[in-house]
């Protein structure tokens, strides 16, 4: 019987689904079980009845990412055992690696390896959809490396520079 983990917004829960008669399913979420009558009403829709309560869910899949929307809550769902890396968001990370928060183009590189920088200094400027976005130093330190150049295309999550904290 299908049993697996689902992750939404950083929380992972274990689910078990047991199929019964006539489109009925026993769904166990962590340790609470409920009975659902469920029908796929389209490629992207599931209609669920919990006794009399009716819930219309929209669903889709894109590789390892799955999507669910219920009553205005739109969520990305992953099956954790499958999602490797690439899960963390963009922006400046605590370890000093500066990653792009969006795909786009590097329009300016303000620093070179070895430069001293203060927290909040702009290191690289990325542009997408005509909006510029400054990637800034997360703390005081030295630029350990620059991994991009002006005019280069970057993808979501690319490391464009690294900053090492000032010692002491």
């Amino acid at each position, binding site marked *: *019987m*299908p*049993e*697996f*983990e*689902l992750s*939404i917004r*950083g*929380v992972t*829960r274990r*689910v078990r*689904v047991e*199929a019964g008669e006539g489109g009925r*399913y026993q*769904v166990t*979420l962590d340790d*609470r079980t409920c009975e*659902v009558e*469920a029908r*796929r009403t389209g*490629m*992207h829709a*599931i209609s*669920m009845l*919990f006794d009399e309560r009716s*819930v219309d*869910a*929209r*669903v*889709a*899949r*894109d*590789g*390892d990412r*799955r*999507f*669910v*929307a*219920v*009553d*205005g*809550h*739109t*969520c990305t*769902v992953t*099956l954790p*055992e*499958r999602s490797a890396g690439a899960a963390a968001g*963009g*922006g400046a990370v605590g370890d000093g690696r500066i990653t792009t*928060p*969006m795909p*786009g183009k590097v*329009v300016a590189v303000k620093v070179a390896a070895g430069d001293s920088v203060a927290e909040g200094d702009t290191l690289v400027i990325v*542009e*997408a*959809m*005509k*909006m*510029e976005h400054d990637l800034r130093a997360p703390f005081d330190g030295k630029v350990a490396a620059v991994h991009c150049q002006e005019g280069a295309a970057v993808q979501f999550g690319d490391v464009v520079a690294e900053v090492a904290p000032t010692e002491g």
Partner: protein
Amino acid sequence: MIRKVLVANRGEIAVRILRACREMGIATVAVYSEPDRDSLPVRLADEAVCVGPAPALESYLRIDAILDAARSTGADAIHPGYGFLSENAEFAERCAEAGIRFVGPKPEVMRSMGLKVEARDIARAAGVPLVPGSAGAIAEADAIREEALRIGLPVLIKASAGGGGKGMRVVREEKDLVGAAEAARREAQAAFGNPAVFVEKFVERPRHVEIQVLADEHGNAVHLGERECSIQRRHQKILEETPSPVVSPEMRERMGTAALDLVHKVGYTSAGTVEFLVDADGSFYFLEMNTRIQVEHPISEAVTGVDLVQWQLRIANGEKLTLRQEDLTPRGHAIECRIYAEDPANGFLPSPGRVVHAFEPNGPGIRHDSALWSGLQVTPDYDPILSKIVVHAEDRERAIAKMRAVLAETVVFGVETPIRFLFDVLAHPSFVSGDTTTDFIDRHMKDWTPGGADELPDAVWIAAALDRVLRGGESGSAAAGEGASGELPEPWETIGRFEIGGR
């Protein structure tokens, strides 16, 4: 008579214009950049011409390519939409030289109004009140700094050509002046091909209220009341409504009259918008005039029953305005929500990617101006607007309720959107009470997140689990690494499979 219109734009506004033409029995030509081959405008138009690769400068901004497309298809008019070449007077002139009607005002009027400095001078001459600002466009960073200090901080640095929040920066501290000026100049250059900027006093906590006008070539003009556009992020509107919670019929008449004074002063024709800042005591100041159709035009259409885009085409055709000012009293209340591919929980950064699935609900008082389709690839090359939801109801309270109901049903999977954010904006007590100033989002929604997983209804988890099971494929947790093979494929996956070659 206009027989064939080329739409020099993309996305939802191109769809909007194409539908208007179709209803008027006018043949249509879409132009598109390479990645837009599959877009809705191309599919809706009678003819479609590729004008270049993804970058706008090499496609949608290429005047020669667009005029060539018009000539090769025999189009006798061009509608520029908003953005791109819509406020480019040179383009309007080139159209005229080529014997093609430009759907918009005369080039000289566009030029005057497009240059904010000249527009301010004309507004001053027409007796319209102004916000203090620099006397002219400035191209040097040092001069910008000097002027800003003269006017007094905080100031707003804005691109002299164009609008829409691009090349715009608020500066509150002297030390930020030079960097901000540089960035504004660079963005202005990239977006409009003109680095000149303009400095003006930044009015604290203003409202942004604009008046829609329509003017024909026979000296007739009407206004269609105001739009309240104060809900902005990054100085770009995201939610608009009409009537404004603070505009009384008397104030509407005063603002409308001021707008029409400007229209008559410059000999404006076609649809246009006069933007005002409104301060806490109800005084209003001329900001700029947009010489084109606006993103938010549908809310004016909803409360007046007028089709602005069809009127643009009729005016370009030389028709007389038959609308009477006394028939244009707003009826009911309308709200527009802009659905962008952007992440409201992450500074509204663009969120390109593939729209895996989209759903837009139908029903009374609901309008979607949309270029969304399941499979749309949102590229980082353009403004990330996907669609606009417009609702119309008997009063503001009911319009808010309707918009919340529509947002709760609307689904976009695959890219981030502000749908839930807007849902929460509409529930905020300050919004509900009509306290909508341009700093609304910064003040009330700064740390907005979609909420943690703990707040989600269990039905979300159950639906996710059932979808996993109902799609088939292997089911145990031991399947890691096997990918999604064996599962019900998404249409866009099967599309991908069959797209290349037909055997």
